[in-house]
């Protein structure tokens, strides 16, 4: 089944002359991990907010074209209903944490859709376990580290048992180790629960191996959509879109320019190591 389908979608926020998204047509299947890549103001957050109906139900905007999430027309589905299907995690976890304890935070969503108490308790335990915060139940969220807060925000989204998880720049406040842990968690969520995961980021460097697919946005338009090894090798398009290419993919392109016909494209560290070792070994015959 399709996790979501945008068809010629255009978004213009109320009071703005600019199209935040312009003729975007994207369909994502359930179980995919998709990186939504773009610079500031490329339309990443708008794309995310369409999926849980925040745009246009809470943030006034003119939306043209179709937005379907798990078979439902978003324009005719309430934010509350969508919240049971789509979990949303924002850039700064503080912006969505407001309860006095970790447990209350995670229970908040299910309580609001009148889930029976016993079921809420089991969902809270499950969600905290998945993100590695078991036993943190009584702790105040304000006392957690940046990485723990981010994991709590994810647990709060998971307790609604969403089929689609949308993360808008989740690495923003995390240190490198925190980012590595986050990506391992997302991989687990897909493998174990078949969850569809959308990650909006400005930087693809540490996501090249996690994602199945990369959608490159520029000024509200989709300029590339495909496998990471394909999209992230299109160095010029990434540069024009204001995104820096992953270092290994960039190196592959630079070597192909400098030594035409002498190297094969590579995308991983291991591939790079082998190609360059070969290139150095086979010296001689270069154009001066």
């Amino acid at each position, binding site marked *: 089944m399709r996790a979501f389908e945008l068809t010629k979608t255009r978004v213009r926020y109320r009071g703005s002359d600019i199209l935040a998204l312009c003729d975007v047509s994207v369909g994502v299947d359930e179980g995919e991990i998709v990186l939504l890549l773009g*610079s*500031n103001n490329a339309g990443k957050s708008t794309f995310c907010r369409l999926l849980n109906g925040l745009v246009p139900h809470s943030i006034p905007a003119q939306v043209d074209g179709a937005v379907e999430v798990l078979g439902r027309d978003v324009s005719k589905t309430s934010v509350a209903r969508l919240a049971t299907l789509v979990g949303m995690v924002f850039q700064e976890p503080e912006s969505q944490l407001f309860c006095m304890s970790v447990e209350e935070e995670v229970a908040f969503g299910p309580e609001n859709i009148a889930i029976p108490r016993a079921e809420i308790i089991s969902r809270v335990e499950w969600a905290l376990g998945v993100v590695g915060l078991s036993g943190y139940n009584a702790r105040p969220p304000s006392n957690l*580290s*940046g*990485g723990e807060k981010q994991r709590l925000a994810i647990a709060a989204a998971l307790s609604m048992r969403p089929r689609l998880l949308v993360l808008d720049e989740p690495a*923003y*406040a*995390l*240190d*490198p*180790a*925190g*980012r*590595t842990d986050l990506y391992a968690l997302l991989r687990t969520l897909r493998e174990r629960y078949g969850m569809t995961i959308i990650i909006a980021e*400005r*930087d693809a*460097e*540490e996501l090249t191996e996690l994602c199945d697919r990369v959608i490159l946005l520029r000024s509200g338009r989709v300029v590339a959509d495909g496998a990471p090894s394909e999209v992230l090798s299109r160095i010029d398009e990434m540069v024009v879109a*204001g*995104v*820096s290419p*992953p*270092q*290994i993919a*960039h*190196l592959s392109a*630079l*070597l192909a320019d*400098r030594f035409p016909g002498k190297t094969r494209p590579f995308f991983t*560290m291991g591939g*790079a*190591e082998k190609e*360059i*070792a070969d*290139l*150095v*070994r086979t*010296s*001689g015959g*270069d154009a001066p």
Partner: protein
Amino acid sequence: MNAVVTAQRLPVISLQDVSFSYEGGIEALKRVSLRVAKGEKVAVVGGNGSGKTTLAKHLNGLLKPSSGKVLIGGQDSSRTSVATLARTVGYVFQNPDYQLFCTSVEEEVRFGPHSMGLGRDDESALVERSMKLMGIGHLREQSPISLSLGDRRKVAIASVLATSPEVFVLDEPTTGLDTVESAQLMATLDVLRSEGMTVVLITHEMRLVAQHMDRVIAMSEGSVAFDTEVEEAFSDSDRLRRCKLLAPPITVLAQRLRAQGALSKGAATPLQLVEQVVRVRGERR
């Protein structure tokens, strides 16, 4: 600027056995000793909560040590006002909105030198030079709050630059910027460095550290975990992991290629690595 030639290698900042506890007793710095010499480019790195920002706020006297001693330009930070220390060390906050308050960019940049009581001509020269170095001259009439985050950061840096400090401390200046904006910002830092200024950069962004910094001080649980040249800092992946850090892919690749004898030097960018390959192939021909 009071750059004395003989002071070239003297430390402009020196921390001796510095500990610091916040109210409530959390010990954020534990017996930290280090020296920063004039003209150095130092990155302060570490995981969330490792003590980076607490350390940075000791470098300009915003925080005073609970025990130990901080010397800034030879002055004991515990006995000197922040205003006086600010002539030696300029501090750029992580959030530029903490320091921007004037109605125009030019006024913002003028505020610092004006309060130093310089003559009108000297003041204007500093303002113009700072705006030019940061590339914000065309924004002079605009209100700082109307600008993009990247431009607000540049205004914040220019307003500190206009007070001509010897040392620049920047707390995560690229957070929230996209890659084009952060490349621009780092290019302007390279300009400051070429002007002889000392730069201390607090950051999570290891590619920028590898590319622009000379020395790395890694903090972990309030202590200095290691303090080395940048090349060496990224050579021990286990040590990095313990400090919640990760080396950039190109740095790791260059190290692996060196280990197997394919390259003779490290590289911090894809282009540098290509240059290495070109050179080695040339030698082996």
